[in-house]
């Protein structure tokens, strides 16, 4: 899932200061699951903004609407009626959703209500961890099911750096060193020999370094 966190309230208050009627939109998929931008969070933000405006002696009217996924044209179209009534839109979806809304309603200013963080998973209740950097060339079968790009601060592929100690990362002692974990798992599986060979240079162009990515599936085109 894509995880996000709500932007600080003051930042959002400042962004929408010029407008008197705004549409606060939630997304029903990832950001609902991580409690950052679903229907409930949209309602909370809308009421916080109204209260803040009233405290400043001014008026703010809000509409709220949440769709299944803001990252698809079909769903964001559902905002059309409410958007027409409002001067601006806050999207509480991930960056993909915000851009879809912005493209779908080019005559309205669209503001991000969340900061999109990473592709990850809820490790336990209330804790989400990064798992994938969408590199476009998966190596998880070689590394015991743990991603050295998402989980090593230096994206190393030939083993741990010189700062790994006591199973922790040099960047932050709260973070596990993924290379210690990879080592432990492959040792358990009797596959340490896999780590002896030198992994060649990566082609990073399959990831974000190759320019923004477009997947074309001709078999799926109409």
């Amino acid at each position, binding site marked *: 899932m894509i995880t996000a966190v709500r932007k600080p309230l003051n930042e959002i208050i400042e962004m929408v200061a010029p407008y008197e009627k705004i549409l606060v939109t939630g997304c029903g998929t990832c950001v609902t699951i991580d409690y950052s931008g679903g229907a409930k969070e949209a309602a909370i933000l809308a009421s916080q903004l109204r209260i803040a405006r009233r405290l400043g002696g001014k008026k703010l009217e809000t509409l709220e609407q949440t769709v299944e996924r803001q990252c698809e044209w079909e769903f964001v179209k559902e905002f059309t009626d409410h958007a027409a009534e409002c001067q601006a839109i806050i999207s509480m979806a991930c960056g993909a959703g915000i851009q879809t809304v912005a493209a779908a309603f080019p005559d309205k200013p669209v503001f991000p209500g969340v900061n999109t963080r990473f592709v990850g998973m809820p490790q336990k209740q209330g804790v989400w961890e990064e798992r994938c950097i969408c590199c476009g060339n998966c190596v998880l079968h070689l590394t015991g099911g743990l991603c050295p790009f998402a989980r090593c601060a230096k994206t190393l*592929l030939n083993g741990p750096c010189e*700062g790994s*100690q006591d199973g922790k990362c040099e960047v932050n002692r709260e973070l596990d060193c993924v290379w*210690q974990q990879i080592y432990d798992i492959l040792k358990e599986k009797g596959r*340490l020999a896999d780590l002896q060979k030198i992994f060649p240079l990566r082609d990073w162009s399959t990831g974000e370094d190759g320019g923004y990515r477009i997947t074309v599936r001709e078999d799926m085109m109409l």
Partner: protein
Amino acid sequence: MSANSGLKKLLEKGEFVIIAGIGIPRGADFKPLEERYKLLEKKVNAFYIPDNPGANVYLLGLAAAVHLQKLGGETLLELNCRDRNRIAIQSSILGTAALGIPNLLFSTGDHQTLGNFRGAKRVYDVDLTQAIQIARGMRDEKKFSNGEEVEQPPSVFIGAEVNPFADPLEFRPALMAKKVEAGADFVQTRAVFDLERFGKWIKLVRQQKPLQKIPILAGIMPLVSVEHAKALQEAPGMIVPDSLVQRLESSSKPEEEGIKVAKEIINQVKKMEGVRGIVLHAGGMESLIPQLIT
């Protein structure tokens, strides 16, 4: 111009080499470097030039190296993988060789968030093992990493950073073996304070035949105060035993005690198999180095 490594010759002759890490200025002036050089001139075999250590900004290592070589000192220049991608690494290898810098130490690099420029973007396009492989390929096979031909191959004596104090200990010799297979001619360790751990690592390394012929240059750092020792205990990749901190604490002259400790460590590592020299990590403390090596 091809660079000839005096360091390589000394190691081949079986001499115990002494390399001094030199403090690189944080301004656009070589004067502090010259002053530090004068303190050590002709006292050491080479000068190790760290590459923006601790992820902080210092004068460009290559510039410092060229200047020191002009003054007459041989240099060992560090190139980290934090600040340069494969294009910059290869261009640096060509440039350093053309400028007569004979020795390169490849390192991963302290992570950018550990320094004073926390917001910097990472590179780490190439890891340490791959960087060594690239250097060896350019030198021995006259090939860039993409297979294109190098017009004039660089002459370079290739060093690899290793850390006996990083974990998992039992995996560290295998990691060193990868660096050696990639093309490392010698390895340089982080500063040794924990002799027991260092000894364990040496023993594991010596069990691997291909590693037995690889010169190990042991890092040595004088502790100058209790605070210094305690700060190093917190630094990533270092092990400073409590017993050493206590020795400094109970001494009325901690700096002198620190020198004594460093000399003891030097004497101990000298006796260990495979240790063929030392690198004094004493940047900014160059005045202490002559006491350490006499």
